[in-house]
């Protein structure tokens, strides 16, 4: 006997679709690797080890009494929050095209699911790293973990807003798929990931402070390492960015929602 599809409220329906898409992300992201979900932790660790071995001896001392690998890891996790969200947005529609044929799956849903997925895996990785560092007594404090998570959320919101915008723009202009990774690349060097803000000459510091990622990266370090100092950073500036980027993304979606349903 055929099954009658049960009726659901719009909110319940939204939750169901998002959950199904999250499961779908989980399957395709890790299903193909032998190590599976372990890559959530390996990805940032590999970057830290490679960069740490190369640059550790040269600029490692500038991080003060924080172990340089931990310093790097913190920066990398926040950078991934931003640039990973942008990349997630750029591929969102293309890799879910087959599922958009269902009326319940709107074009907005793959974006939301991918952003949430990205947030969940990276935040859990960050928390696990912090707990491990704490366990080994590595000069880290867990007192202000909520504040640190708040920095992560702001960074993620900026990335998601830009990711939504870029994802829609890349559907109109294919070339953006190629260009966006190049534009993101310098972020590694201008976001205080590899070195602390205090290590920069004071006359150039205020240029770096235009970058919202510098604020959230340095603020997170201040929250995790009590002895760490970064002058001039605050959370209002990146929070304003998050609101701006989110508005930009949602407005772009709203204005293009009819175009987006075309294959």
């Amino acid at each position, binding site marked *: 006997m*055929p*099954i*009658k*599809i*049960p009726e*659901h409220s719009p909110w*319940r*329906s939204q939750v*169901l*679709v998002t*959950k*199904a898409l999250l*499961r*779908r992300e989980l*399957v*395709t992201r890790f299903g193909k690797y032998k190590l599976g979900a372990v890559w959530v932790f390996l990805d940032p660790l590999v970057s830290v080890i490679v960069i740490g071995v190369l640059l550790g001896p040269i600029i490692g001392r500038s991080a003060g009494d924080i172990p340089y690998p931990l310093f790097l890891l913190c920066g990398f996790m926040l950078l991934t929050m931003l640039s990973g969200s942008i990349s997630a947005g750029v591929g969102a529609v293309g*890799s*879910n*095209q*087959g*599922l*958009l*044929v*269902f*009326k*319940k*799956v709107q074009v907005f849903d793959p974006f939301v699911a991918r952003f949430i997925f990205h947030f969940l895996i990276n935040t859990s990785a960050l928390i696990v790293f912090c707990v491990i560092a704490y366990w080994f007594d590595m000069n880290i404090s867990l007192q202000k973990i909520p504040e640190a998570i708040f920095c992560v959320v702001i960074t993620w919101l900026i990335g998601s807003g830009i990711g939504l915008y870029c994802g829609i723009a890349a559907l109109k202009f294919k070339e953006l798929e190629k260009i966006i990774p190049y534009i993101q690349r310098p972020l590694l060097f201008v976001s205080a990931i590899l070195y602390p803000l205090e290590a920069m000459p004071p006359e150039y510091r205020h240029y770096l402070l235009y970058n919202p990622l510098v604020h959230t990266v340095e603020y997170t370090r201040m929250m995790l390492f009590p002895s760490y100092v970064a002058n001039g950073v605050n959370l209002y500036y990146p929070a304003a960015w998050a609101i701006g980027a989110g508005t930009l993304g949602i407005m772009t979606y709203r204005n293009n*929602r*009819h175009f987006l*349903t*075309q*294959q």
Partner: protein
Amino acid sequence: MIKLRNVSKHYPMKGGGVHHVLRDVSFDIPSNQNIAILGPNGAGKSTLLRIIGGAEKPNSGVVETEGTISWPLGVKAGFQGSLTGRQNILFVCQINGLSMADTRKVVDSVYDFSELGEYFDMPVKTYSSGMRARLCFGLSVNFEFDYYLIDELTSVGDAIFRDKAKQKFEEIRKSSALIFVSHSMRMLKQTCDSAIFLNQGKLFYYDDVKQGIKAYKDFMQNITQGVRT
């Protein structure tokens, strides 16, 4: 009843022109008939199904629907290539909020109907078009829809699948309406009551499917004659 009110749909073309699929179309699709959709290639038959199914939005106008409508059942659409057949089926069950028991029932039933064997756990992108059609059809007959949108589903697949599909259609058409896109006139004559002829953004309705097919054939003949002379 599915109501189209002043619906227009057009696509931008590479050269800067615009391709009109529907121009200000107002039409009520009756729910008590099986309807064939006819038209030359590129007339927008699949697009019309996607608009009715709610997957695509018209540029202007509104589509009002009553009752449950399937997604367009076809070879091309409906499955994510990177997921296996089973995962795709689970996805559809999940977005519709089916219970665990129902989900298991659906998965088993699709597994039996589609006869995909080991391919059921292979990514859909490795399927032939006939296998995709079997999976798609096997899934859709598990749900109760008031309208079934069928996009060339039966023109692929082997004789066994076609026989099975025909049998199922006979069952379905008793309780639901089929909206059928196909280039097989024999199939359309057998299953449909009335016809819509879609051409250059306009929609013509024929009470009798035979009339519709005749009009379509005449039109196509005129074109080929026009080319010859």
